[in-house]
């Protein structure tokens, strides 16, 4: 069974594990694929506990859709150096997990996942940036453990795609940060 078969299995049924993120405005171009977990879908769809979170979720959706629409994104392939990049490879790099960094407005949000293939990102978990503390903290390790566990649960025999160049992950409109 290929990873595509597994993804299709997770998309199916009345309580799917994964959802296809599509732009909400009709007519927007769809260039790349993003699959999001139930956890991220819940954040995007609401209900939200307050207006601040509602607004933040709206911003996050637009940031995630930028990936789907094939907009320019900066990708960092060196862990701990992502700074202002749209997405960055996490440590250990050999595992192939990335975070998408929705930095503005504060509080920033990090969405964690990996590429199942070029131009297809599977987003599995999310966290506000602040509670994670500095890189290497226990909270970061816990969050990293959460995304790796989710990946293993959904794709037991497949690891996220790895590579040495931006083009290994995104075929166009992406640059190395």
């Amino acid at each position, binding site marked *: 069974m290929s990873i595509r078969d597994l993804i299709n299995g997770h*998309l199916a049924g009345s309580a799917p594990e994964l959802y296809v993120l599509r732009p909400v405005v009709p007519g927007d171009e769809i260039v790349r694929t993003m699959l999001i977990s139930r956890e991220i879908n819940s954040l995007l769809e*609401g209900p939200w506990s307050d207006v601040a979170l509602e*607004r933040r979720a*709206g911003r996050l959706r637009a940031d995630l859709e930028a990936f789907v629409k094939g907009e320019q994104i900066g990708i960092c392939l060196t862990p701990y150096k992502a700074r202002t990049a749209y997405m960055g490879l996490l440590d250990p790099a050999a595992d192939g997990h990335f975070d998408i960094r929705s*930095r503005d407005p504060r509080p920033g949000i990090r969405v964690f996942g990996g590429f199942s293939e070029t131009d297809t990102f599977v987003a599995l978990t999310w966290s506000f940036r602040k509670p994670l503390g500095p890189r290497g903290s226990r909270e970061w390790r816990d969050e990293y453990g959460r995304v790796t566990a989710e990946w293993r649960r959904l794709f037991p025999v497949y690891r996220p795609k790895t590579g040495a160049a931006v083009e290994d992950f995104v075929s166009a409109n992406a640059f190395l940060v």
Partner: protein
Amino acid sequence: MKTSFRQTPFLSEIASGEPIPHAKLAYFQERLRNRLYHFVVSKFLEEEKAGRLTRADLARRIHKRPEQLTRWLNTPGNWTFATLSDLLLGICGEELEPHAKSVLNRPQRNFVSPTWIKEASASDTSSPAATSAPHQARWDMR
């Protein structure tokens, strides 16, 4: 390409004149910022690829430190109208022409996901979580 015109529930408050939910206002704010970023950065990368401009050249042209320019080109996070103007002028000697079009009644594109995705219609991002909670806004897409 075949297209169809459909009014989406996502845009229902915009169409009806009702108060627009906060999430949707925020979505369009960020969407605009991302689109402007894509537009400007694409211009820069085009010039850079053609060998007509480097980051250092651009920084010099608009009197910014290279590290400031790098931040601007990596993320639109702290862009202002002034940033946008400086970058466009410095990159290609252009300015934005104001133009807006309705978000309503746009044709739906036929391509919604790669052909290998089989169950997309059953689990696109609009499917769950429809409740009447005060901060819930359903994001139906079609």
